[in-house]
C-alpha cells in the first residue's frame, strides 16, 4: 500500500485539456448496457458514461446533483420530491422530462431491478405536477432511498423508446440512448465499445474528451501489458491483478484511485450453512472465527490491498459503521476449548469433524481464501475439503440445494445497510433458489425486528443506534465470517485526470475527465 497515498492526488487536476480519445479497460465485457434492469458492475462501468441518474455521489458519498437539481424529504419521511434539470435532451433530440422518471421508476426499477424492488418498494404514488418536478408518496419512510438514485442504482431510461416494449429484450439495451456526456457509437463484440462526445451536453463546456474506447481484454496478464505499453490509459475497477500492482509503483508514470469503489462497499466473507450440525452450534462458529487470522489473510491473499473487516457493515459506510462489535482474535487454544464445550472433542488422531468449503471457479482470491481457511481449521483437527464448481453450479449448490458447509465469496454491501446487508441476515429473505439472499439459513427474530424497524425509521439518530445493535448481534452469532474489505483500485497513466473524485467513481460519467498532452 505504500505508494498509494501521494499517487491518489494525481488523478485530480484543475486545468482541463480539451480533446483526445481515452482508451479505457474494464475487467469483463458487459452483457448489455442497461443498468436499470441489471446491476452487474461491468454494465454500470460503461453505461454510466451514456446514461445518467438523478444524482451522483461525491468523495464522501454525499449526493450531488445530476439530472435532479434539488431534492426534499418531508419531516415525516413520507414525501420525497425532486426538481429536475431543465433543457436536458436525450441523445435522439427528445426532451428529458418528469414523465421519463415516472416511467422508469414504475415500470423498470420497481418491477425489474433486483435492488430496485426494495429500494422503491414503499413508493405508492408518483405525481408530476409539471415536466420538471416529480413527487413520490411513500407508505412508510424509506431513509435508504436517496442512496440508490445514481447512474448505477437507478439509471434513467427514455420513456419514448421503452414504453410498451418488452423492456428486458429492448434493442436499445445494446445501443443505449441517454442524456449523458457521451453518445453511443459502436459495439464490436469481443473487442470494444466506442462512445463519442455529446456536443449538446447540459453541462456547458463538458465533456473534455472527444470520445472513449472501452477495450475488452479477457486475460489479466494482457491487461497489465496494455496499460504498461500505453495501449490503455486507465484500467477501471480492479481489472489488474493485485499481484502485478508492483509494476505500477512509479508515481511519475502511473496513478492510483482508491475511493471509486467505496459506494459498492464490498466485503469478502465465508458464510456458514447454519442449518446442519456442527455449524448450527454458535460455539462452533465462534471457535472457527477464532482460527482465522484476518491480518495474515489480508497480507497473503489480498497482498495488503484492503482492510480487515470487523462486521457486516464496511468501515467505508462511516454513517452506520461501528467498530464496537465482538472480535475473534486468532486463538487456537480458545477455539479448541469452544469446540470441546460444544461436544466436538478430538479423536485419537486429533481430528474432530469434516467440512466442505465451496467457492466458484475463476476467482483467484476466493480460491486462495478457501485454501487459507483449510490450513487454519486443520490446525485444531477440522478437516476441510475444497470444492470449486463453475459459477452456475456454485449458485445452485448454495442457494437452491443448500448443499455446502462453508461458502467463500464477496458481496457489495452498498451505502445503506437496509438494502445491502439486511438481505443476508433477514429470516424472510431465506428464499430457496434466489441467489445472494440469506443463504446461510440464519434466523434470529430479535435481529429481524431491529432490521425491520431500521428500514422505516425516519429519525437518523435512532436508526444509527438500531444499525449499531444489528452489527453487534450478527458478530455475536457469526453466521458469516466477515473477512476483508477489499480495496477497489483504478490504475491509470498520469495523463488521465478528473476535476473531482467520486465515491461512486466506478460509475462516474467522465464528463470532467481529460488526458494531459503527451510529453
Amino acid at each position: 500500500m505504500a505508494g498509494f497515498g501521494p499517487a491518489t492526488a494525481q488523478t485530480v487536476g484543475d486545468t482541463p485539456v480539451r480533446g483526445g480519445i481515452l482508451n479505457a479497460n474494464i475487467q469483463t465485457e458487459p452483457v448489455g448496457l442497461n443498468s436499470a434492469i441489471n446491476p452487474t458492475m461491468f454494465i454500470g462501468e460503461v453505461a454510466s458514461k451514456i446514461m445518467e441518474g438523478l444524482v451522483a455521489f461525491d468523495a464522501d458519498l454525499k449526493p450531488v446533483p445530476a439530472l435532479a437539481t434539488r431534492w426534499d424529504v418531508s419531516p415525516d419521511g413520507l414525501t420525497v420530491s425532486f426538481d429536475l434539470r431543465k433543457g436536458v435532451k436525450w441523445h435522439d433530440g427528445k426532451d428529458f422530462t418528469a414523465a421519463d422518471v415516472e416511467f422508469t421508476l414504475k415500470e423498470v426499477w420497481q418491477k425489474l431491478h433486483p435492488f430496485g424492488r426494495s429500494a422503491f418498494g414503499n413508493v405508492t404514488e408518483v405525481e408530476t405536477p409539471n415536466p420538471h418536478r416529480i413527487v413520490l408518496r411513500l407508505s412508510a419512510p424509506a431513509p435508504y432511498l436517496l442512496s440508490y438514485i445514481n447512474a448505477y442504482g437507478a439509471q434513467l431510461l427514455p420513456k419514448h423508446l421503452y414504453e410498451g416494449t418488452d423492456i428486458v429484450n429492448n434493442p436499445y439495451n445494446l445501443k443505449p440512448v441517454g442524456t449523458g456526456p457521451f453518445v453511443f457509437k459502436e459495439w464490436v463484440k469481443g473487442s470494444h465499445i466506442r462512445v463519442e462526445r455529446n456536443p449538446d451536453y447540459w453541462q456547458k463546456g463538458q465533456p473534455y474528451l472527444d470520445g472513449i474506447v472501452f477495450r475488452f481484454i479477457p486475460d489479466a496478464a494482457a491487461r497489465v501489458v496494455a496499460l504498461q505499453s500505453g495501449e490503455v490509459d486507465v484500467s477501471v475497477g480492479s481489472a489488474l491483478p493485485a499481484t502485478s500492482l508492483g509494476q505500477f509503483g512509479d508515481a511519475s508514470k502511473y496513478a492510483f484511485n482508491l475511493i471509486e469503489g467505496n459506494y459498492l462497499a464490498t466485503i469478502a466473507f465465508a458464510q456458514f450453512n447454519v442449518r446442519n450440525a456442527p455449524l448450527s452450534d454458535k460455539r462452533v462458529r465462534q471457535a472457527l472465527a477464532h482460527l482465522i487470522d484476518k491480518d495474515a489473510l489480508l497480507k497473503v491473499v489480498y497482498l495488503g490491498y484492503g482492510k480487515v473487516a470487523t462486521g457486516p457493515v464496511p468501515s467505508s459506510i462511516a454513517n452506520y459503521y461501528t467498530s464496537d462489535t465482538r472480535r475473534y482474535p486468532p486463538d487456537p487454544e480458545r477455539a479448541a476449548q469452544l469446540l470441546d464445550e460444544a461436544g466436538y472433542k478430538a479423536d485419537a488422531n486429533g481430528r474432530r469433524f469434516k467440512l466442505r468449503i465451496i467457492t466458484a471457479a475463476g476467482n483467484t482470491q476466493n480460491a486462495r481464501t478457501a485454501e487459507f481457511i483449510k490450513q487454519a481449521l486443520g490446525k485444531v483437527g477440522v478437516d476441510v475439503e475444497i470444492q470449486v464448481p463453475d459459477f452456475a453450479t456454485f449458485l445452485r449448490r448454495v442457494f437452491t440445494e443448500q448443499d455446502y458447509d462453508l461458502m467463500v465469496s464477496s458481496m457489495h454491501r452498498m451505502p445503506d445497510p437496509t438494502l445491502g446487508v439486511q438481505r443476508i441476515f433477514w429470516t424472510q429473505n431465506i428464499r430457496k433458489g434466489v441467489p445472494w439472499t440469506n443463504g446461510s439459513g440464519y434466523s434470529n427474530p430479535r435481529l429481524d425486528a431491529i432490521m425491520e424497524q431500521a428500514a422505516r425509521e425516519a429519525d437518523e439518530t435512532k436508526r444509527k443506534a438500531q444499525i449499531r445493535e444489528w452489527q453487534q448481534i450478527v458478530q455475536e452469532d457469526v453466521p458469516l465470517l466477515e473477512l476483508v474489505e477489499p480495496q477497489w483500485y483504478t490504475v491509470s497513466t498520469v495523463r488521465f485526470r478528473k476535476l473531482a473524485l467520486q465515491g461512486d467513481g466506478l460509475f462516474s460519467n467522465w464528463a470532467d475527465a481529460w488526458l494531459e498532452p503527451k510529453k
Partner: protein
Amino acid sequence: MYPALLKELLRNRSALTGLILLALVMCAATLGHVWFPGDPWDMVGTPMLWPGEDPANPLGTDIMGRDMATGLVSGAKVSLLIGLVSTLISAVVGITFGALGGFYRGWIDAFLMRVTELFQTVPQFVLAVVLVAIFKPSVATATFAIGIVSWPPTARLVRSEFLLLREREFIQAARTLGMGDGRLILTQILPNALPPVIVIAALNIATAIQTEAALSFLGLGDPNVMSWGTIIGNGREQVVDAWYICGLPGIAIVIIVLAFSLLGEGLNDTLNPHLKER
C-alpha cells in the same frame, strides 16, 4: 526374455537416459518427503521468496508462502500416479476395442471402429475439460477423463496388429487344434501384439502428465491436491515478478515427459525387430 530385454534397453542410449531421469523423478516422488516433510499447502514462509534466498525454503515459496520444494515433491507423486493409472485405463479400453474388432471383424469391428472414430473426432483436450467439468474436479475424475480421451490410438494400433496376426500360420494352427476364441486372443495373439502397445503406452504417460498439468492450470485440477499444474496455474499472474513459481514445475514436467518419451523411443528400438540394425 526379460533380462535380455533389459540388457538391450540399457545398451540403448535414449532408453538409458529415460530410465535414469525416470528413476530420479520416482526417487523424488517416493523419498522426497523425507527431505521436505509436511503439508505442501502449509504457509510456512514469507510469500514469494526466491530460490536460495532462505535456506529453510531452498526452492523458494509461492504467492501464499508455501514451500516450493514440498509442493514439487507432492506434485511428482500426483503426476506419476495420474500418468500411470490413466494410461492403464486407456490401455485396457484400447486393447479391448482393438482386440475384439481386429479378431472378429465384420459388424463388430465396424461398430467398435465407429465408436473409436467418434472419440477421435472430438478434440482430446476439450473432451477432457468437459468430462472434468461435468463431474467435480478431483484426482479420480481427472485420471478417468484423461484415460477416456486417450485410448483411440491404442485401439487402432491393436486392431491392425490383430488383423495381421490372426491370419498367421501359428494362429491357424492353434485354431485347428480347437483352441477357443478367448484363449486364442489372450494367449496367442495379444502377447505378440503387445510390443508396439508398450511403446505407445510410454508415450501416453507423457501426454497424460501434460494433460493433467493443463487441466490444473485451467483451474480444473483437484483443489485439495498440489500438482505441478496447480503450482503453475497459481503462479501465472506473477510470471513477471517471480518466474520461478511457474518455471520450476515447468522444468519438472519437461524432465518427466522427456523421460517417458526417451524410454518409449528406446523400447521401440529394442522391441521392433525391423529397427534392430539401426
